[in-house]
């Protein structure tokens, strides 16, 4: 058989398809970027431009007034997300640290010190990840009120820790399953107990697991809205998502301030995502049970 025309035929057949693939990808990429374009462009406009132009046009000059107003509006008591940013930060970071360690310990025991009934325990814990939180919201509000933790960052942070148990346990359990059991067995032979094995063998190997879990928890807690809006009511305790929502209400007509507010509140998770997207994707896939 003559192979020359066949090779040419393949090249002809493959080439247009490849060009089409790139064209479709680039078009979809542009489509996906539209909201970000709108947000960035809008946030750089002045009050006058907001009133005279649509959200699509470029600003005449780069004006950071809207960014300042979103953080601290010139009008007294009209919101602003600066305090929300601070509240989210001091609530999210400890919650991420605690829930990561808690999940790490749970996942370690469930994967390396398996006992009869371990799978049942895991299933019992896991179900908590797949309930609509509305189903526990009303008793939660009541309990926090009784404990005087309602409308406090402590109460909100503890809530995120408790309901973070299933996902952090799940990711660490899958992660530790990939650490060879021989390592653990060898340490046991040397007389190491359950906590010594954790400290000496498991913990030093856990850094990638911690990165995945911490990113996942940070993104979720930072972005969360349902608990935030129902468990806090004062501006002094509201996290950034609630502050942004209020900003959208009090500045009904000014899209430049709203867009700036949206970008500022998205910035922390955005930066984490851009720097560590590989780990973000790992957490995403682990969260769907497919480790």
């Amino acid at each position, binding site marked *: 058989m003559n192979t020359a025309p066949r090779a040419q035929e393949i090249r002809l057949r493959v080439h247009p398809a490849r060009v089409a693939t790139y064209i479709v990808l680039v078009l979809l990429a542009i489509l*996906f970027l539209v909201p970000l374009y709108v947000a960035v462009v809008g946030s750089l406009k002045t009050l006058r431009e907001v009133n005279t132009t649509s959200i699509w046009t470029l600003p005449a000059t780069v004006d950071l007034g809207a960014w300042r107003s979103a953080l601290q509006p010139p009008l007294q008591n009209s919101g602003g997300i600066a305090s929300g940013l601070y509240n989210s930060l001091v609530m999210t970071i400890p919650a991420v640290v605690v829930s990561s360690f808690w999940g790490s310990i*749970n996942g370690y025991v469930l994967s390396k*010190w398996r006992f009869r009934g371990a*799978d049942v325990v895991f299933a*019992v814990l896991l179900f908590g990840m797949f309930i609509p939180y*509305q189903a526990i919201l009303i008793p*939660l509000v*009541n309990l926090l009120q009784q404990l005087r933790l309602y409308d406090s960052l402590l109460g909100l942070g503890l809530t995120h820790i408790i309901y973070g148990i299933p996902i952090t346990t799940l990711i660490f359990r899958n992660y530790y399953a990939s650490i060879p059991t021989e390592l653990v067995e060898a340490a046991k032979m040397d007389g190491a107990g359950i906590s010594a094995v954790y400290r000496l063998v498991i913990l030093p190997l856990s850094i990638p697991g911690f990165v995945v879990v911490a990113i996942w928890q940070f993104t979720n807690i930072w972005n969360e809205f349902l608990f935030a809006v129902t468990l806090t009511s004062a501006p002094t305790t509201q996290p950034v998502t609630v502050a942004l929502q209020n900003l959208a209400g009090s500045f009904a007509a000014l899209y430049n301030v709203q867009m700036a507010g949206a970008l500022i509140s*998205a910035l922390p998770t955005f930066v984490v995502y851009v720097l560590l997207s590989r780990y973000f994707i790992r957490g995403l*896939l682990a969260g769907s049970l497919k480790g």
Partner: protein
Amino acid sequence: MRTRSASVLILLPAIVASLIFVYGFIVWTGFASITSWNQIKALKNFLPDFPIVGLDNYVSLFHTPRFWPNDLVNNAVFTVGFVGLSIVVGLLLAILLDQRIRGESFFRNLFLLPMSLSYVVTGTIWSWIFNPHTGINQLLDPFGFGAFRRALLGLGLLSPLWGFLDALHVNIVRPGLTADPRAALGAIVLAAVWQMSGFVMAMFLAGLRGISDEIREAARVDGASEVQIYRHILVPLLRPVLVSVVVLLGYISLKIFDLVFVTTRGGPGVSSDFPSIFLFDSAFKGNLWARGAAIAIVMLIASAVIVVPYLRWQLRQEGRP
């Protein structure tokens, strides 16, 4: 034996927390839903001490048009639209990225980027895009899209379709978008698809990469075209991933709250209202706590119907070698 008790001891805080804050609280909510706790009075202790009224709250709920049919139908329509479109877009993206293209990680990270954003952020931005006076219409109308849309809506042939979509609140051909009760729900679907289709892409892409190259090679040797390989071999092999995607997106869709709260807050009227919004209004704005609890239980049952069989399936699969 000693290690077993140590293991259980270490897990105990998580087990106790789960029994109280997940299972106990669900029972608590269930109990509250059969009481007459529909007033502003705060509870004196940890349980709602109000007279038990049986299923009265559920009966009245299902006689409230805002809940049934409106909210439940809206949620069902949203679920079908959101899950369906996310799968179509996500699968398309996954197949495109599976072609060993240059800049794969750039595109992948770009399509996944919305996943890292809060629904509140997304909702704020999209509600401006959907704003009929400053948003997408201003971009497209200069290209004659407005006239095209009017012509389309005026076609007698298509009027049954428009009537159907109008009734479901998803007719996004209508220029009013979030300001038009006939289109508002559809607009929220679009924003949600933007946010979540990257996740579907990541799941499918991981699935495609898990399929051994030998299968593709064998099909190529047999003379199958690339399209045929995807259509008849690869996509059918993705079925387990598809099940995961449907369940996870379905779960998200049945509890969705923040995106709706920020974009339309259920409006105009109740055209894009959801059980989660109704619950928020009933309990947290209206002090109808027992009614709120009843809505919560309906939501829990709806998501348990899809999640519980899925979890059983997943956990059983895991047990296999």
